[in-house]
């Protein structure tokens, strides 16, 4: 009975408290979701593991020498071994990635996947190739496993690439698609596309997480949502050359030199001299010495600046949360006082008529429980409608909300206890 009376008399204050509590819980939810997304972003190529010295390895062959090596199988094997040895070296991360567009037949996507879209190059769109087929040059990144892991990429749907099973000679390559490809292609579908001028069947095995990005060509945030990720073979020297040559005798040469032009991530304890010495050793062993090492000093600077900006946002958002929490705390305390002043006479009368202080306190328990349940329910329902859905954030915010309710309950009960033990003085002071 007291629940109905209390709600009827104090509904406005109770509703105001509920709304404030829900708003605050939603703030906590959003900040928790943002913190989670920040951690994920940092894990994706911005973590301490990414604090390395970055160099670029390029071949320094003149055009004639380049053509000569391409025609010399033994020399190509030497380049392939050179690449594999660097990749296997425990002190180096050989990050090989290249953005050769893939020419896809009967491409189903729209212009945003075109290689020219959003860049300083013009949009080419669909066109007819020499065989009269309708094709389109679409954005693609070819990369090795080290590059994939260095960028901290992960698959949202489907399965990751089985790197050991990548076989360019089989005519079928498993690929990952950026998140914007959802609805354009499905898992298991195959695209016929030319990769490094060689037609392959590209089988869709997975979709990347949304907003996946990597450091590419001095660009700290190269997003992959509109890109096809094509894996390089796990090794070059160990490839089935016969199968590859059957597809195209020049494919191996093109592949080797594309893979060679890569970034080298080196632990910061090893200086440039040490890096050069190690590479020279590998070059001597494999017979390939026509390479140049370029430092990428901007890498670390950019990395730290991007990290700093993400950190800046986190600090800003957290500061706002602290301020809002304090603000809501103050106004809630005010409402609490108002509510208590309205409940106090009821408590005093019940106490007067023989209810013990504890029993009197329990009079308003149903009201308080109704208030807290309504707040929690509203919060859960509203948070589900927000675009940034996160179960972890929801759990965290719910926990904070429950703690807030526990404190509110304790403060309310104490206030009633104090009210009942304080004798009100009447008349003028003596």
């Amino acid at each position: 009975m007291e629940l109905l009376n209390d709600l009827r008399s104090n509904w406005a204050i109770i509703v105001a408290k509920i709304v404030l509590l829900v708003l605050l819980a939603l703030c906590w939810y959003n900040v928790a979701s943002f913190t989670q997304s920040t951690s994920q972003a940092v894990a994706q190529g911005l973590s301490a593991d990414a604090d390395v010295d970055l160099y670029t390895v390029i071949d320094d062959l003149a055009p004639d020498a380049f053509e000569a090596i391409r025609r010399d199988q033994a020399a190509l094997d030497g380049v392939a071994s050179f690449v594999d040895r660097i990749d296997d070296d425990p002190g180096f991360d050989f990050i090989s990635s290249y953005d050769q567009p893939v020419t896809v037949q009967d491409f189903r996507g729209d212009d945003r996947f075109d290689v020219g879209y959003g860049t300083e190059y013009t949009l080419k769109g669909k066109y007819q190739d020499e065989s009269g087929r309708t094709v389109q040059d679409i954005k693609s990144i070819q990369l090795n496993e080290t590059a994939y892991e260095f960028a901290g990429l992960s698959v949202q749907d489907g399965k990751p690439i089985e790197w050991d099973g990548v076989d360019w000679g089989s005519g079928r390559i498993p690929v990952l698609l950026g998140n914007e490809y959802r609805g354009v292609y499905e898992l298991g579908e195959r695209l016929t596309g030319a990769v490094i001028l060689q037609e392959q069947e590209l089988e869709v095995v997975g979709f990347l997480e949304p907003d996946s990005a990597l450091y590419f060509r001095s660009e700290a945030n190269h997003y992959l949502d509109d890109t096809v990720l094509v894996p390089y073979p796990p090794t070059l020297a160990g490839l089935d050359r016969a199968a590859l040559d059957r597809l195209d005798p020049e494919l191996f040469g093109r592949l080797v030199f594309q893979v060679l032009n890569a970034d080298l991530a080196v632990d910061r304890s090893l200086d440039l001299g040490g890096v050069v010495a190690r590479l020279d050793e590998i070059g001597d062993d494999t017979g390939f010495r026509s390479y140049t090492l370029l430092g990428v000093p901007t890498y670390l600077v950019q990395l730290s600046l991007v990290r700093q900006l993400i950190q800046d946002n986190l600090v800003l958002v957290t500061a706002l949360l602290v301020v809002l929490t304090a603000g809501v705390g103050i106004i809630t305390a005010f409402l609490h006082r108002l509510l208590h002043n309205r409940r106090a006479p009821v408590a005093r009368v019940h106490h007067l008529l023989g209810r013990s202080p504890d029993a009197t306190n329990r009079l308003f328990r149903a009201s308080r429980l109704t208030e807290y349940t309504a707040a929690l329910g509203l919060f859960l329902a509203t948070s589900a409608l927000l675009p940034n859905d996160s179960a972890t954030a929801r759990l965290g915010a719910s926990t904070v909300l429950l703690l807030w309710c526990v404190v509110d309950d304790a403060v309310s009960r104490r206030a009633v206890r104090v009210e009942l033990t304080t004798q009100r003085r009447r008349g003028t002071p003596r």
Partner: protein
Amino acid sequence: MIVLRDVSKTITEPDGSTRALFDRLDFDLREDDRSVAITGRSGSGKSTLLRILAGLDTDFGGTYEHNGHVLERTPRRMAAHRLRHIGIVTQDHSLLSDRSVLDNVRLGVPARADSADRACEALDAVGISHLAGKRPRRLSGGEAQRVAIARAIAKRPTVVLADEPTGALDETTEDDVLALFDRLQQAGTKFVIVTHSERVAQRCGRRLQLQHEQLIARDY
């Protein structure tokens, strides 16, 4: 019935100084008492003594006995005693404006199936059944006081403690309320009335005065 022995209490004044309110005070409400008036000057501690009798104030030295048993002076124990045996009428009625007269009176009856009947009975006894559905805001001072009395007697207590029950009433209404008290006393309810009114005190069977931290019997 109710015996206070060696009651001592000190209070802290607004200026921070302490003052003895009672000094080894004794009070007893006997079986043959129908009504006892407690008088005294303003600030002598009449209301505080009533709060001690009601079990609302447990912060004192001495003992509280009921029917020969010394009661444990905890808020919980005294509330249980108050619930079973004591009805209280305050000067400001202490009615709740968010519910009807009947619901206000029902508050005085410990939760039972026939609480509505008891409440109606009590309203009948004080002559205001016709006001059962009204809200306290709409009552006159005398009507509100009657509702407070009905609430106090609804559970059929042994004792009714009344603190200045007619303080805010005119003489005619005061007479009505005192006549009501007489009727209830005849029915067996004992009254302890704190008052500064000589008229009220003279209507009571025994009169005590709070003076120099003690209760002293008065004759008229």
